[in-house]
């Protein structure tokens, strides 16, 4: 309980720091929402009138306070650009990003764990070397380029999916998930490569420890030693990595969302930044940070479950 309390407090502080930082940062970026809204039709008088109306002429801390207060009341405001409720807009996009992330995460795990174990079991073998090299090359690919190649190969040549054929989850959930498979693959691939490498080296270094010898001395077969003894220990550092990877996927899929034209949180964030649409930027950032923090918390809990040495009292 104490743990949860401490975590929640840290979370609140982090959120406060992040939002304040973003708010201040935006204050210093050139370009302002009023000008954006009026475009080339703007006259200085109209811009001024609009700034006044939007409260942009107030001191920045007052603006932040106002935003924070409203936010705590559950009011995220109205998007400057879309003129629609921010909470509605963000709520609409969260399932997209979350589905994409979950898919990518599952793929990563499904690819990485068996491969990592396989290579660790066959260290020095031909297949191990081949997988190692493939891994290294995958990790050397710029993510967007991998996305483009996947579109090219699976979309255009093999015709397994329609490039740009995103369907909304409200309209056709299976079509939606179907479309997300390849982007998720593009996200999962480099992370999986890293996870394979990590798991392999983790299994290898665990295998050198004394308790493994003890396990053999009791008559365990190699297989039994690996699955009953080594694996759980070897997974501990991997869990940290998987947690970080998951957090990274939540926000880091911006590029892949762009490549595959997926209207997720990342794209909303990107366009809102360039539109100077602060209410949306703040909401998305809070959302992403919250998701990341929750993931970190879950990782901590899993960590505690897997490793008895870490207590989460």
């Amino acid at each position, binding site marked *: 309980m104490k743990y949860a309390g401490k975590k929640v407090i840290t979370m609140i502080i982090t959120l406060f720091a992040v939002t304040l930082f973003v708010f201040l940062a935006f204050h210093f970026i050139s*370009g302002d929402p009023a*000008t954006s809204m009026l475009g080339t039709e703007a006259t*200085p008088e109209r*811009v001024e009138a609009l700034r006044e109306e939007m409260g942009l002429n107030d001191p920045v801390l007052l603006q932040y306070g106002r935003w924070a207060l409203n936010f705590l009341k559950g009011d995220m405001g109205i998007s400057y*650009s879309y*003129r629609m409720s921010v909470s509605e807009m963000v709520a609409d996009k969260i399932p997209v990003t979350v589905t994409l992330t979950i898919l990518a995460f599952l793929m990563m795990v499904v690819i990485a764990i*068996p491969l990592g174990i396989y290579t660790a079991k066959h260290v020095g073998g031909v297949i191990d070397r081949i997988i190692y090299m493939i891994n290294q090359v995958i990790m050397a690919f710029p993510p967007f380029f991998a996305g483009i190649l996947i579109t090219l190969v699976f979309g255009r040549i093999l015709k397994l999916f329609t490039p740009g054929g995103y369907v909304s989850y409200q309209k056709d959930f*299976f*079509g939606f998930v*179907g479309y997300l498979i390849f982007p998720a693959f593009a996200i999962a691939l480099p992370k999986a490569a890293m996870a394979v490498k990590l798991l392999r080296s983790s299994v290898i270094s665990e295998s050198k420890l004394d308790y493994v010898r003890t396990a053999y001395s009791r008559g365990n077969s190699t297989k039994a030693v690996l699955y009953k003894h080594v694996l759980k220990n070897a997974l501990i550092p991997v869990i940290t990595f998987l947690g970080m990877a998951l957090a990274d996927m939540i926000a880091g899929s911006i590029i892949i969302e762009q490549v595959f034209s997926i209207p997720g949180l990342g794209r909303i964030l990107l366009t809102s930044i360039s539109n100077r649409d602060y209410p949306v930027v703040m909401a998305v950032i809070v959302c992403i940070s919250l998701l990341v923090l929750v993931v970190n918390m879950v990782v901590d809990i899993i960590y505690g479950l897997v490793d008895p040495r870490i207590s989460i009292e």
Partner: protein
Amino acid sequence: MKRKGLKSLLMIFVLTTLAIALTGCSGDKEAENSSQITIGIPQDVEESLDPHKMVAAGTKEVLFNLFEGLVKPDSDGSLIPAVASAYEESEGGKVYTFTLREGVKFHDGSLVTAEDVKFSIDKCADTSNGGPLVEAFSNIESVTIKDASTVVITLKEADTEFLAYMTTAIIPASNTAADTNPIGTGPYKFVSRSPQENFIMEKFDEYWGEGANIEHVTFKICANADSIVMDLEGGSIDMFPRVTATQAAELSDNFEVLEGTMNLVQALYLNNAVAPFDDVRVRQALCYAISPQEIMTIISDGKGTELGSSMFPAFGKYFMKELNDTYNQDTEKAKALLAEAGYPDGFSFTITVPSNYQPHIDTAQVLVEQFKAIGVTAEIQLIEWDSWLSDVYQNREFQSTVVGVDASNLTGAALLQRFVSDSSKNFINFNNADYDTALANAIASTDDAEKTKYYKECQTILSTDAANVYIQDLPEFVAINKKYTGYEFYPIYVQDIAKLKLADEQ
């Protein structure tokens, strides 16, 4: 035990993935019993959907299908009656009388009334927010309802071009959520908008006129400009209004590529108020340094229309092709002018380019190379559109910028008025008393020939004074699946979807 669990989990995952992938593929093609089209657009409709508040060209071209004014533009540039069935101009362009068309309905089913018309025009003329929504409406003295189907607009000063502004959308006075729920009288009505995803509209069955052919229209936001060819070929979009020459070349036979022009004045706009561009000789030197033809060859395979001043050919009678020859590429002359202006060794400056439009970025890159030949070093600085709006357009803190300036309607003033020295839109700080006089004369004159003469004088001044380094009117390539026909280009920045139809329906 555990391992078996993992294995079966894996199997389940793979199987569901496959199943979903397969259904995903098969479910893609919609039943085509009702006609539909998906049109790719590079930028989202990301602002208010109130037709009077929208400012982005990308929004206007989409909402064109939802709204109409008393009159509306046709593809040949003329104005045709829309919500008004007839109009009359009297007192030398001081009083305009509109007769409302009978039975015109809004998308919500209500009939258009004279009150709605007055409401719409008054709304745009309202000055309480620092200025009128439509600048030209500051000239309106009164809008009066003569009877249920007649509205009279009286101007403060005569303006024979005023009709062009009557394309301003007529909206119902009763709509309180105009920002997000657009209601107009156009051939299509609004269905939904999902940010960064799509904008959907459908045929308005009670449209007063001929109406649309295609029932369902989806504008899909294609975030990744580089995958447009794949999107078209893959079938996720049927049409993309602005592909590049290279993309056009990569498309298969299933697509038709129509060629038009963008209808804008692309130029290296120079801040006439800052050194060294406050010296006319420097500006002229830059004009001599470049070759619009070479730019067109490099960035769009030679397509495009060379421009010599702030006017493009869609304006017909106002356009002066001869101004293209004011400056022909001449490195020696450029160097001489620079030396004369006190820059024998050239100088350095920055070209600010909004990062959202590739042709401008490409043009800027070619310009940089061309300026090298006269010893001038230019550096490109990309900024976001919104920074451009505030830094360059509003605050005028820049040296030069490559953009395209378009016209909101087909009056000469739409393009030329911004260069009047005290105009709030004169972002290049152009200052020439002769120009101000000529433009005032043009607007004031009621005689068409005289008006044209003055507008031409304005253009000539811009050209000889080298206000900007004029380049071209960019070519526009519309890629459209051969399943559809009927696309028409307009001299202004719109997409008229109502004219599209299925090819086999002919």
